[in-house]
């Protein structure tokens, strides 16, 4: 029984790690520049497709992961400079619309290039085997997700809490106007963060491809999950989105194990009620409270 509970928990945490990796860029950019970016999932999708393309052709898995992070990062930077920047001054509606347009374009592009069917990533053989984790054997892939997710989360945590870059980022999220007034280049900070956020999304999309398989409907299908992580966690709150991603992963997994048929809509009902109770999310950054 205990072992079963642990399995559910591990499944939930590994899923949560994928959600966290993909969403963390979104939470910072939405918190920092208040851009409603519905196209964020597209960067993760592109990462997944790139990893699929290279691994299916026999390239080294880690090389594929690196490319899957770099290309979405570059694309993200280009999009930021060309289409996102005019949006900062416009309202939420324009942001929603333009990013929906990007989702349409990205969906059509990957369908044209890779076809209309799911496009799996070929993971290395040692990740597809179950491995012994003490009290039972557990799929190596899930262990890999948890380890990689935990390492990246720890690095991000350290960078955001301890580095000068992190201090600037936190300052800009809390009060962008004040940050500008004391001479920080918030625009450059934002472009950099956007690139890193998209690269992380691409990486998350690539290593998470075993759970969220790349397919043309990917960005529309999962963007809601990423938005939930960001909004439930509290826009701009790094720790909030970590908590929200874990909670979402665990609750969704539990739902699938115990109340299978009702699971999807119960999750959305839970999100609905939670947002009515706390419209700012679980752990909103200081500026929002």
């Amino acid at each position: 029984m205990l072992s079963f509970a642990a399995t559910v928990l591990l499944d939930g945490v590994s899923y949560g790690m994928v959600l966290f990796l993909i969403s963390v860029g979104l939470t910072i950019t939405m918190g920092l520049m208040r851009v409603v970016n519905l196209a964020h999932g597209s960067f993760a999708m592109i990462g997944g497709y790139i990893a699929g393309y290279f691994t299916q052709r026999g390239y080294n898995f880690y090389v594929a992961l690196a490319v899957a992070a770099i290309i979405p990062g570059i694309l993200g930077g280009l999009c930021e400079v060309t289409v996102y920047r005019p949006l900062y001054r416009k309202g939420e509606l324009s942001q929603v619309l333009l990013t929906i347009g990007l989702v349409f374009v990205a969906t059509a592009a990957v369908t044209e290039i890779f076809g209309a069917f799911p496009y799996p990533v070929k993971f290395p053989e040692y990740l597809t085997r179950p491995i012994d984790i003490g009290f039972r054997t557990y799929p190596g892939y899930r262990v890999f997700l948890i380890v990689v997710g935990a390492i990246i989360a720890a690095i991000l945590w350290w960078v955001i809490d301890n580095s000068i870059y992190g201090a600037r980022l936190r300052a800009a999220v809390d009060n962008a106007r004040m940050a500008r007034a004391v001479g920080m280049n918030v625009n450059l900070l934002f472009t950099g963060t956007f690139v890193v956020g998209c690269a992380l999304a691409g990486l998350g999309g690539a290593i998470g491809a075993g759970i969220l398989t790349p397919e043309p409907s990917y960005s529309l299908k999962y963007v809601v999950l990423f938005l939930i992580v960001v909004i439930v966690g509290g826009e701009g709150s790094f720790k909030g989105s970590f908590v929200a991603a874990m909670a979402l992963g665990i609750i969704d997994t539990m739902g699938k194990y115990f109340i299978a048929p009702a699971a999807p809509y119960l999750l959305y009902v839970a999100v609905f009620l939670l947002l009515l109770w706390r419209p700012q999310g679980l752990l909103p950054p200081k500026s929002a409270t």
Partner: protein
Amino acid sequence: MTNPSETQKAGGGLLAGMSPWALAGHALPWAIAIGFFFIAEGYLSFGTQIIIWILFALSLDLALGYAGIVTLGQAAFFGFGAYAAGWFSIHVSPDPILGHLFAIGLTAIVGLISGALILHTTGVTFLMLTLATVLIMFEYANQAKEITGGDDGLQGMKVGPIFGKYEFNLFGHTAYVYSLIVLFIWFVIMWRVVKSPFGRSLDGIRQNARRMRAIGTPVWWRLLAVYTLSAAMAGSAGALSAHATRFVGLSVLSLLTSGIVTVMLILGGTRRLYGAFVGAIVYFVVQDYTAKISPYFWEFIVGGMLIATVLFLEGGLMDLGGIARRQWERLTGKASKP
């Protein structure tokens, strides 16, 4: 619309004191729609579909365009109306008008309840709540197979003749005329609403809700009223779609449906009354044309058009005339009126 003299006219008839050109402008779309019935017999079901989506886009214009409620949840009402009409025709009565009224009433109640729950929130949280509304309904409809038919869709709808006289025939004559009449009724209602003092207050709320609250406008109630009306209109469009095709599929409740109706409205132009008309027609023609080139090409084109509209043509296609006129006035040296 920003012309103050029009405000005064709102009390009188909608057409009172209008210039012959403006009258002709209003008559044109309806004349085209009626003419289409006689000259394009083979395309009537295509035409019916366009009319239904015009009505759906108009409902979104009311909430998003006029009141500034940034929602992605409009498919919830369209889908709910479609399922309500379908369910009514199977279990209660095949009469399309009764079923239509039932669907409108029920969707309005859903709009009222969901609006009352979520309209106090703003921004991304509100957007997320509207998304959650659609997703809850979609997943529920997917599960509740005994009511909705789940993945297979709602089958076995019986649609009787309108007024016991006009059968829905294979060529879609009745469906076309019926949909056009329903659209016209809603159009007149919406026109009256947006030109009324109530509509003016929506204008104010969109531009600055805080100031409107400060001058004593009951903002929340106004938004709730317009959200409910918009839901009823979307439900009506859904019911039309169910009756015209005698089928309701799960896709009516999908996020893509919400996305597409938003694209139509934005392409055509918000707050222009006829923006929804232009947008829906352009969308369907582009989709029909590009789908022949490649089955996915239309998504690329539509996405690109949406991006271009947001970046370069904020008023939508309906604003092209206005832009041309402003350019002309600038070239000829006339100062444009503020």
